[in-house]
């Protein structure tokens, strides 16, 4: 029987697990959370049942059906609170996946390893937030944080909040804030109307099949109007102010390339600000597996969602930021192919069509809402770029200039930018972009910040501990697995 290991239990991973099971493969599904659903279907824990939770989610019924099917299926082993900390390639097959299971950042967790016939990577993405003066103050959150705390805990990060950045995600963030009682003073989308038109208007017939996506965004827009939230284009939060916490922000008009326009600044008193400039795919496992990336730095896949690494499939946001419907379609195809199915199979016909419908979204979002080259104009020399190691923009520039280095690795080692505990997840791409435009002719060492051979934090004692053979590790019930993390 084919053994399929699915990493990530968001929309793509859940769909992959179900598709692989339909073809009779033996499936193991891992997620670092103690709940299924990933960030998109982040929900209240079992300890806090709510009668109408579905009104907070798009595709909630799909989620319920996927998770119920998998949870009741003896051929699908679900391991929650499972942190993959390394992936080693092998001469044959996709390699060995090393996992630590237990309370997040706990001690004495259990180490497991898997050597499956096929791996489906569905590791998703996290917010990309560009640095700006004051972004390290408590009270400055990513959009994803506001969303996760609202949906997962019913917590409002602030009473008076502004949302700023770029992309359609700003709308559900504002909607979630309003739903937990925050007053959203404004949503500031950095890009201007011509960019939005350029992204969304061409070939509108291609959008026809994507009516579900339109309905999702339309729902947010209606909520927006109902709560009279100003939605302003071509503006951005360019600074956050306060001593121990954010007390106000400066909002300014910015040009089409995101350079702040002097004289347009306006100060707004807030107690929280939520920033999101798009998403960064979580690529470390794909890189460790040897998967080739596209120019846009997503996992390159063929029509079976197979990557360039043997036996390694990829689905969802790591192949392009395309949203839930694309993730579900890609996951289904990846799981089907990983279990030995072929793309021409009848059962897959609708899904393959669905994937084509939603595939254009990633490119449209990038064209309409992508990060523009003028963003470093927001920075001052004392703006923190690397939050972990507290490396300022000034220090990065001085080091690049005084050493004349065009090597990302060398400048990282000299400044410690990107070498902190988050392993460059938050600042990595920003550091790369800042250095690439400072170093004349760009960086030359071909290094990027997505490579993390140890892909999750693990305590040294746990690393030294014996590995429990995966086959002898059985979870007796789902309640036991969630208890382990409380």
């Amino acid at each position, binding site marked *: 029987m084919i053994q399929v290991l699915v990493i990530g239990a968001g929309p793509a991973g859940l769909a992959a697990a179900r598709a692989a099971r339909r073809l009779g493969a033996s499936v193991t599904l891992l997620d670092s959370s103690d709940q299924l659903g990933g960030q998109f279907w982040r929900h209240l824990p079992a300890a806090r049942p709510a*009668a109408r939770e579905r009104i907070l989610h798009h595709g909630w019924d799909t989620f319920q059906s996927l998770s119920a099917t998998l949870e009741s299926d003896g051929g699908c082993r679900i391991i929650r609170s499972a942190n993959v900390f390394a992936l080693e390639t092998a001469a044959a097959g996709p390699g060995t996946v090393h996992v630590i299971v237990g309370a997040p950042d706990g001690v004495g967790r259990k180490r497991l390893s898997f050597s499956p016939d096929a791996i489906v990577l569905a590791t998703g993405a996290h917010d990309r937030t560009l640095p700006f003066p004051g972004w390290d103050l408590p009270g400055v959150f990513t959009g994803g944080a506001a969303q996760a*705390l609202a949906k997962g805990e019913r917590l409002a990060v602030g009473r008076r909040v502004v949302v700023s950045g770029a992309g359609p995600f700003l709308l559900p963030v504002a909607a979630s804030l309003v739903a937990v009682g925050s007053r959203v003073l404004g949503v500031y989308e950095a890009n201007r109307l011509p960019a939005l038109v350029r992204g969304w208007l061409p070939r509108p017939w291609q959008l026809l099949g994507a009516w579900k996506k339109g309905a999702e965004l339309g729902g947010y827009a209606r909520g927006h109007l109902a709560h009279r939230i100003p939605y302003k284009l071509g503006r951005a939060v360019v600074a956050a102010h306060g001593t*121990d916490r954010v007390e106000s922000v400066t909002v300014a008009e910015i040009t089409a390339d995101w350079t702040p326009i002097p004289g347009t600044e306006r100060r707004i008193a807030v107690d929280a600000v939520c920033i999101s400039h798009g998403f960064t795919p979580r690529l470390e496992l794909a890189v460790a597996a040897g998967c080739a990336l596209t120019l846009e730095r997503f996992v390159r896949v063929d029509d079976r969602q197979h990557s360039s690494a043997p036996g390694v499939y990829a689905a969802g946001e790591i192949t392009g930021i395309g949203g839930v419907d694309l993730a579900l379609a890609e996951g289904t195809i990846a799981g089907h192919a990983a279990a030995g199915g072929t793309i021409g199979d009848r059962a897959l016909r609708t899904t393959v069509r669905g994937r084509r419908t939603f595939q254009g979204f990633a490119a449209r979002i990038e064209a309409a809402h992508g990060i523009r080259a003028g963003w470093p104009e927001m920075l001052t020399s004392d703006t923190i770029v690397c*939050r972990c190691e507290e490396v300022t923009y000034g220090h990065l520039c001085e080091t690049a200039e005084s050493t004349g280095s065009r090597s990302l690795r060398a400048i990282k080692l000299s400044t410690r930018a990107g070498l902190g*505990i988050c392993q460059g997840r*938050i600042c990595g791409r920003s550091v790369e972009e800042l250095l690439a435009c400072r170093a004349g002719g760009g960086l030359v060492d071909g290094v990027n910040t997505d490579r993390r051979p140890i892909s999750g934090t693990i305590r040294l004692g746990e690393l030294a501990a014996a590995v429990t053979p995966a086959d002898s590790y059985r979870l007796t019930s789902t309640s036991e697995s969630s208890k382990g993390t409380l």
Partner: protein
Amino acid sequence: MPSRLLPFCNDSIRPASPTPVTITVNGEPMTGVTGQSLAGVILAGGTLGFRHTSVAGRPRGVFCGIGVCYDCLVEVNDQRDVRACQRRAAEGDVVRSQHDPLPAGPGEATPTPGVTAS
């Protein structure tokens, strides 16, 4: 108290009546709802700053909320470096904020941040 939990009786999703969970944070008791993360309980208590940084002694709190940024690290029951946004609060958890000043260089004073977590 700017960050706060939506009272369950006002919540349109009609949650069941919540079970309280009490932890201590730097010696002060804080009560949240069972199933909340440590970060959620601390935020709902109105505290945004969780720790001070090593180099400049600047306050930091929850940033990414999904376990990526490590800005919300706290000590829990004598275990250091726990992401407060990832760990669910358990009754009686003893949480302390972390601050690890850098060793002072020759002729330098160790940065001393304010000790309050506001």
